[in-house]
């Protein structure tokens, strides 16, 4: 496989996965805030700041007034905003176009028609009454596309590279969403005092990564800071956890590396090491310094990405 082709496949996977997470984050946070339990969480300003913080290096300022229709347009359809769902889908399609001779016709057609639907979406409808159906459509379509990836490609290196992109992006998104909601909970505590019940923010975090129901059935407890983080970072069986993503990343990198010799500098070696670290970590280790623990996740992902770049995508 060409290195450029591998790069295109990888980023196609990443952008598709990113569109899904962003859509769900907007959807869950916006709609749950409408009847949130405390004033702060109900405040649209607070919610939009959290959304902007997820997609950009936005710094939260309490005095800044965010216009709802503008921010929703920016996040969903604005072609000028690199982070918009439009641009994520458009980038996924650009990358798919670069490899359309490699991927299945059905997969390409689905991505292509998805792009045309997003392109033709009306701004007025979106900001006035279509936010729910727009974000739901993106979530559903990305799900269908993942099925097409899994169901219409031979499970060889092409498939492995796409899935590497999907799972690396998933790990990044979960870690970023954890950071955002962790900050939200901190802000809630600061403004309402420690007595405030932050379980609302943890529930929203779980819903933002489609893990609320799974978590409830697993713990049978109200989400708290620690059980939520334990579930989303360490649970190997939750398909939306960091550890589960690392298990998948590890599986797919092995398809690409047929070399029997161990190379401590390789991506494969580093991925295996990182996975072991999370497999043998406990929530007590994380609790000591939650902020740092979450930062460490992104640092490890950055190193994995760099190693993949030099080893496979160098063209």
């Amino acid at each position, binding site marked *: *496989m*060409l290195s450029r082709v591998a790069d295109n496949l990888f980023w196609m996977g990443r952008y598709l996965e990113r569109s899904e997470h962003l859509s769900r984050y907007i959807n869950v946070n916006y709609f749950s805030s409408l009847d949130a339990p405390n004033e702060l969480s109900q405040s649209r300003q607070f919610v939009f700041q959290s959304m902007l913080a997820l997609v950009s290096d936005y710094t939260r300022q309490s005095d800044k007034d965010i216009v709802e229709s503008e921010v929703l347009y920016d996040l969903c359809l604005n072609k000028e905003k690199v982070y918009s769902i439009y641009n994520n889908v458009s980038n996924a399609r650009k990358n798919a176009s670069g490899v*359309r001779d490699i991927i299945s016709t059905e997969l390409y057609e689905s991505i292509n028609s998805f792009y045309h639907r997003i392109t033709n979406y009306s701004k007025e409808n979106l900001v006035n009454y279509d936010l729910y159906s727009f974000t739901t459509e993106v979530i559903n379509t990305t799900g269908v596309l993942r099925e097409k990836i899994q169901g219409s490609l031979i499970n060889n290196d092409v498939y492995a590279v796409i899935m590497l992109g999907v799972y690396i992006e998933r790990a990044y998104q979960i870690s970023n969403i954890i950071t955002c909601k962790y900050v939200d909970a901190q802000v809630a505590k600061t403004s309402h005092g420690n007595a405030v019940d932050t379980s609302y923010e943890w529930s929203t975090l779980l819903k933002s990564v489609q893990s609320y129901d799974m978590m409830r059935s697993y713990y049978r407890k109200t989400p708290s800071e620690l059980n939520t983080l334990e579930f989303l970072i360490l649970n190997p069986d939750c398909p939306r956890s960091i550890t589960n993503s690392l298990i998948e990343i590890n599986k797919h990198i092995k398809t*690409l590396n047929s070399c029997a010799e161990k190379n401590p500098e390789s991506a494969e070696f580093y991925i295996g090491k990182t996975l072991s670290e999370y497999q043998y970590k406990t929530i007590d280790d994380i609790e000591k310094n939650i902020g740092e623990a979450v930062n460490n996740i992104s640092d490890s992902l950055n190193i994995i990405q760099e190693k993949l770049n030099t*080893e496979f995508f*160098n*063209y």
Partner: protein
Amino acid sequence: MDKESHIFSCYAKEAGFYDEIFDENDNVRAIYKSLFDRFKENSALDFDILDKRAKSSFLNQGITFQVYKEDQMKEQIFPFDLFPRIITAKEWEHIQAGVLQRNKALNLYLWDIYHDKNIINDGIVPISLVETSASYLKQMQGFNPPEGIYNHICGTDLIKHSDGEYYVLEDNIRCPSGVSYVIGNREALKRTLFGIFNGHSVRSVSNYSENLLEVLESVKPQGVDIPCCVVLTPGVYNSAYYEHSFLAKSMGVELVEGRDLFVENDFLYMKTIKGPQRIDVVYRRIDDDFIDPETFNKDSVLGVAGLMSVYLKGNLTLINAPGTGVADDKAIYTYMPQIIKYYLDEKPILKNVKTYHCSDANDLKYVIKNIANLVIKPVDESGGYGVLIGNKLTQEEIDAAIKNIKQDPRKYIAQPIMALSTHATYIEEEGGFSPRHVDLRTYTLLGKDKSYVLKGGLTRVALQKGNLIVNSSQGGGSKDTWVLKK
């Protein structure tokens, strides 16, 4: 327009042109009888629906091309007409023999002018036409391309004149495009109107890529056992990118860009995730000028530095060979009957359009005098750019054209205005079928001990009423083209 009315009710034949559907007495020609009966049952409303369905099929499949309009790139569907063009078995036999003959002669001509130049020494073709051609590559002089083949892939453009005969308009032997639309059109017609295939035995067009791969492999460099073939594309922003990816996918070979390739120790490699892999045959969809910044255009980022030296050392086959443009130039076209006679000792099977060379003093005189009845074409432009149709020009335009021709006569040829036949084409604004001018591009492959003509072709339609230029860049559409088995 009443949407329920008969969709052929507004069909007004153009005088002086051969209409492919109706004969001179306005009766439907026999081969179109059953199709015509079938189509006329539909109302314009039915047709609008079918038309939209075909369009969205193209858009979703990503069978589009990009054009610059109002300073930005726009994605467009190549307009597709649902009424297929039919070519009878007998007509096809004639066309097929004719295009093969031309392309074999062109190949021998290319060998000759890059070797001993006998045809020039014998005074058949003037040396000035070769030496002054911008497409003549001195690097190719004395070089033997693998298996002696230059023009592996040729697109020959034909028209049906008012006398009902086919004439060749031009030979395209650089990077002829459009073949994916032949296959895409067939696919779209099957999806939209499968019933109309009943009662016709139409030849398949789906085996083109298999034959293409065989041709690529047959001209591998010496000493290579199983060649690694690739398609080289300028990239996703090229207007023909769909075609490039289609060809690579259907042959099962890698689609590469210049940045995927590099030259080392006189071999060409592509960069893969498992290290460099050697390439033996490149079907390049990049013009000569851009394939190698070391040899040609220094600013080209599309090609590969050193590619020509690998080729000239015999370690690589390029499809088509560099320098073929010297033979498909519109000035050489006029010598085709002599070229065929010289190399094959045969009479040309297909007719050539009478051509006047502005470089010849007598011809120039004639052209200037009769410009209103001629088509003026720049010799080294393609895509219909720069073509002037005499009877459509204003006096100022005529004056300007004459001035340009006088300044650089070698740059222009002139031909009588050919009467491209018309074919029934669905025109949305008119709510029915109208005659529109069509041509036909055929695709011929030449390999070692192998030749092949795609049994079908691209029927291009000029969608504007009365327009004679069919190129897609000039707003042309296309039709599925049926070659009948008997």
